[in-house]
């Protein structure tokens, strides 16, 4: 699970990604100036709450942002040298599943209720490789077995409604990994699942990652899940990255007041929390972001500078940590660290 970070070429390079939506209520700045690298075999957790833009940024990686109303205003997504922004739909269909795959929060809507699951998983094979139906079915059953579905051979002929939520999520994983993509994007894969099932699924993902060496982008709001699987963390707020760094560093010394606030507001199982310290206020409206630093209305450290100018990601420490805050590393900020 904790693969050593490689200094060689990143698998995926995102630079200044900016996604906007034109809606009746105004322009929604879903993602603004997002930049990060992803290396083979590592797990990057993109964290944020509703309105943070984390899901949209993932959709952009798969070319799934609906293009009317959405548009990629600027930025680049470079996958092993290939530029993904502006890619033709034809090229996307070759890329999806084969190189980059995605699983979603709700497995129910991703599975077609009228086709047997083995058939649906097999479809991926038939579309990308030239193999016959029976062979595809057989491979599908193999995959189902690999993701831990008992009686895979028989169950490949069953329909989605005959599987429980956790099982369906496994099916989605099977579909996503059929062609052994280099990157798997998991968008809130366990949010809708019970905690015991969540544990099963996260374990499965870790296993598969070890076996295939694929990179995992985990999109979530759950600090616990991130702590258990992530190598690196990227925190988003109001469409921007506000902090990135190695997971261990991040939890030990969160630099951005929002991240500090999150840490302080989460009740813990294994350590005592006297009083929770919630972040006051609520996440900003996606149509009307605050001026300057988007977090300032909720930040105890904010001053006039914060209200008028927007901080960029600045490097701290040995270069692996970046925080977008004028007040990071000030004594007041350091006091808020756990």
């Amino acid at each position, binding site marked *: 699970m904790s693969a050593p970070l490689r200094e060689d070429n990143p698998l995926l390079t995102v630079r200044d990604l900016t996604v906007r939506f034109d809606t009746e*209520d105004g322009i929604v700045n879903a993602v603004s100036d997002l930049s990060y690298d992803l290396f083979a075999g590592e797990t990057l957790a993109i964290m944020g709450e509703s309105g943070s833009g984390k899901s*949209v940024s993932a959709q952009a990686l798969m070319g799934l942002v609906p293009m009317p109303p959405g548009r990629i205003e600027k930025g680049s997504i470079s996958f092993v040298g290939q530029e993904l922004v502006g890619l033709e739909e034809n090229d996307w269909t070759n890329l999806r*599943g084969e190189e980059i795959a995605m699983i979603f929060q709700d497995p129910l*809507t991703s599975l077609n209720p009228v086709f047997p699951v083995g058939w649906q998983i097999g479809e991926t094979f038939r579309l990308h490789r030239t193999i016959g139906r029976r062979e595809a079915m057989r491979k599908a059953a193999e995959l189902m077995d690999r993701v831990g579905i008992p009686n895979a051979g028989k169950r490949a002929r069953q329909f989605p409604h005959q599987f429980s939520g956790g099982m369906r999520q496994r099916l989605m994983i099977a579909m996503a990994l059929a062609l052994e993509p280099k990157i798997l994007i998991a968008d809130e894969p366990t949010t809708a699942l019970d905690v015991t099932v969540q544990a099963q699924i996260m374990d499965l993902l870790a296993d598969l990652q070890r076996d295939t060496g694929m990179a995992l982008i985990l999109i979530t709001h759950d600090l616990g899940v991130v702590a258990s699987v992530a190598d690196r963390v990227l925190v988003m707020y109001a469409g921007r990255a506000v902090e990135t760094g190695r997971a261990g560093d991040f939890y030990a010394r969160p630099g951005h007041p929002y991240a500090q606030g999150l840490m302080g507001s989460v009740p813990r199982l294994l350590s005592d929390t006297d009083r929770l310290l919630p972040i006051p*206020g*609520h*996440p900003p409206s*996606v149509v009307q972001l605050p001026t300057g630093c988007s977090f300032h*209305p909720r*930040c105890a450290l904010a001053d006039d500078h914060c209200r008028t100018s927007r901080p960029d990601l600045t490097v701290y420490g040995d270069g692996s940590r970046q925080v977008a805050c004028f007040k990071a590393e000030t004594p007041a900020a350091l006091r808020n660290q756990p």
Partner: protein
Amino acid sequence: MRGSTRVFVMTELTDALAPENAEGGGGGRGSSNVDLATDDTKRTHLRDAWRLLRRRPIFWVAAFLIAVFVSMTIVPQLFTAIAPGEGNPSGEFCFLADSRQGPSADHWFGTDVQGCDYYTQVTYGARISLRVALGATAITLTIGILLGSLAGYYSGFIDTLISRLIDGFLALPYLVAAIIVLSVLASNAGRNEWHVMAAIGALGWPAVVRLYRASVLQVKSLEYVQAAKALGASDARILARHVLPNALAPVLVEATTGMGVVISVEATLTFFGVGLPLDSASWGIMIAEATGRFENSPHLLLFPGAYLFFGTLGFIIMGELLREALDPRLR
């Protein structure tokens, strides 16, 4: 996976954009501990529906038709300088000598059998139609909402009883039943508007009950209804205050379409001689009297026919548009 992925993404996106779902509020001023409410973007379902509707030309067409129809009823004076009174033209403007003339500069719609200005007649005909339509619709709505509430809210035996009743009623051919009821109710001479209203209204309720019952079933399981129950609210209060305002919309839509249907039905019944009495100024009467004379004086049939057609059309189109605009939002 591709097709369903797309669908899923769109849903997610809509969820993220709808201010109702995001934890979003307006830009909070300062860092007070009091949670400020959102800004004044009153994004209600009604506003969304309005925005959708006002862009479609057909909406304005239907609105125009209805507006004309309604104003003919309320202020017929706007349309015709002649004020004949309740459907009976004053002698002043009826010259037997002018009987059955075609449209001319003096008489836009020509004259009728008695030589009265036809335009006036037809215009005033709107009044009766609308009155009967409103009355019948009101009756249907009242019965429908009452029974629908009982069936939907209490379920069990009452629900079964009412549902079977609906089935029974639906088995009756509507017009035939109306004709029978009306013939039995009163003879031709003794019949008046109220009889017709009652007959049409009483026969139209099954559709409303079904619709309202479905609405009630959906609303009653929502948490705010449960909360009212938990507060100790009486069933009557819950049904009136919590269920009704939220379950009404589909029924109102149906009622709009229903208005158009009732207008036509009343005209049909009157045409067949079982509706309004012969001396009322209903379009049905006019049409009935005009059919025999079609060859010589087609205008006698065409004008009331056209008014009937467009009046009905306006309501029906509006009903359909409202359904489209409001329904998905209700889900």
